[in-house]
């Protein structure tokens, strides 16, 4: 059972998803090391969200397998869920619950004790500078704050790896920057961060990035090496290069 590979926290092997005739994800292979910030890039429809949904157990793989935190997503998807956090691109906390109630709910579902939950609530509120907003309904928060809260809730049970699906879409650059500070802080605590984005400047913040085009991984390396390989000044140029090649 415990085939925890010391070197890899996420390992996809020929992972494939087909919807009818359409192959959204085509036999992708990659490994993510513990503690790294792994960027998952691609144009809309390239298959990155689909791949992430398979890794988090929201979608069944058509073919292939992946191991997340030592468990197969096909064999024991429910075991995977104890070790992962997830933040969807659509805000998915409860609008009609208060800030602390959302934290309490997910703490409870993940089996934290009452004491742990209470201290988590204080920690999160403090980290987000939201102590004053503890009793506010989530629907009354600005979008950027909601996203930070959703990120913290995804980490409430101290998972080994957290999946973020376009966590910063729709917010201003300043909020995005402070969101990335949260990501760094989590990574420093040893949490592996698996993040999809279509902001290419954000790709520069990642330890390694993979670029998906039409369901396959076209490139996977550190941003520095990718830029060197494609003789590009920025990730933006790398991306355009790969996307154009495909057409």
């Amino acid at each position, binding site marked *: 059972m415990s085939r925890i590979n010391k070197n890899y926290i996420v390992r996809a092997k020929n992972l494939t998803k087909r919807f009818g005739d359409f192959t959204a994800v085509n036999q992708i292979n990659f490994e993510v090391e513990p503690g790294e910030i792994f960027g998952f890039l691609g144009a809309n429809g390239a298959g990155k969200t689909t791949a992430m949904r398979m890794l988090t157990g929201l*979608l069944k793989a058509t073919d292939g397998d992946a191991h997340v935190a030592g468990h197969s997503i096909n064999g024991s*998807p429910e075991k995977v*869920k104890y070790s992962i956090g997830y933040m969807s691109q659509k805000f998915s906390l409860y609008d*009609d619950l208060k800030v602390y109630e959302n934290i309490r709910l997910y703490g409870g579902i*993940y089996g934290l004790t009452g004491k742990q939950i209470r201290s988590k609530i204080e920690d999160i509120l403090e980290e987000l500078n939201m102590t004053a907003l503890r009793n506010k309904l989530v629907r009354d928060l600005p979008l950027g704050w909601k996203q930070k809260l959703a990120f913290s*809730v995804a980490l409430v049970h101290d998972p080994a790896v957290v999946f973020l699906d376009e966590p910063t879409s729709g917010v201003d650059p300043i909020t995005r920057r402070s969101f990335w500070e949260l990501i760094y802080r989590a990574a420093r605590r040893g949490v592996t961060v698996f993040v999809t984005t279509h902001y290419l400047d954000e790709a520069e913040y990642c330890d390694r990035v993979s670029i998906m085009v039409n369901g396959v991984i076209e490139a996977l390396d550190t941003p520095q090496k990718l830029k060197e390989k494609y003789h590009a000044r920025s990730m933006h140029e790398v991306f355009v290069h790969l996307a154009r090649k495909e057409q």
Partner: protein
Amino acid sequence: MRTILFILQKEFLQIIRNKLILGMLFLMPVVQLIILGHAADYEIRHINLLILDQDHSTVSGDLVHHFKASKYFDLLPAANKYEEGLEQMQRGEADIILEIPLGLERELNRGESAEVHLTADAINGVKAGLGTKYASRIIYDYNVERGRAAGGQIITPIDLRYSNWYNPKMNYATFMVPGILVLLLTLVGAFLASINIVREKEMGTIEQLNVTPIKKYQFIIGKLFPFLVIGLMELTIGLVIGKLIFHIQYQGSLVIVYSFAVLYLIAVLGLGLLISTLSDTQQQAMFIAWFFLVVFILMGGLFTPIDSMPLWAQKLTLLNPIRYFIEVVRMVLLKGSNWMDVRWHFRSIFIAGLILNGLAVWNYRKTA
């Protein structure tokens, strides 16, 4: 187990915060129960009678007088022609036309029997049947009276006596209010349950739950239990209204009613949740729930007796949870039936609950 408690806490908070739902849950059933309890009355009291007296004699005058004295008929202004009467019937104003033909008295005096004509608007068969029955009885009584006056006597060959048990005053509210209560409970519970999960699907909040290690049954129980509690509260309010406003004397054990209500609500809520897991949008869920509920309600024995359905339809009602609850409520509350009398109902609803909730749990997919 602890996980369920957290889910429950969340569901209760969401319900309490939603003013509209709260209003729907408590105000609407109360208001509807009171209004509909008064409205649901089959008894036919005011039958509009149009008399065409063409004889204008002492006998016809006497007969008209007897009809005037009856509490069942409201007399319309007299008409002169049958066609006029029919026209009023077509317009829906006259329910029954009594035509006393010219020469009635003359024929009777000649020692022959004579005929009067009754025409009933038979679109509402019950009303027509009752109306002609009442009219016949008045005429029969008048015959007897005339016979006596002439020194004769009529012996009826068979004397039929009625007694109406359990509801001697034939009070409809007694009969209908418990049934309507069942209905309101069902409507509110099933509809809210049926849009509950699909709402989380549409809002996207269900994804966040699906990536957690929450068990499917924990999720379903967490959804079901709050509505169960609310349902029981509504039942209580309804029973109090029945007692205070409609003055219904509850004969049987409330323990039976509440025990059955728990099983019943579990079954109906399970159906709602099943619909919810089957649907992609709230709109779809509502349409499906609507279809089932209309069928269940109209075939539940509340408005028309199950005995009056054809046999195949009676068999179909065995699949209708509302039928069981309505029967149990009526049997226990009005007749004082005991556990043994309703054991069959308990067994059926228990099985239904098991199947429906089993399907709901099975059909709820954490993985697409």
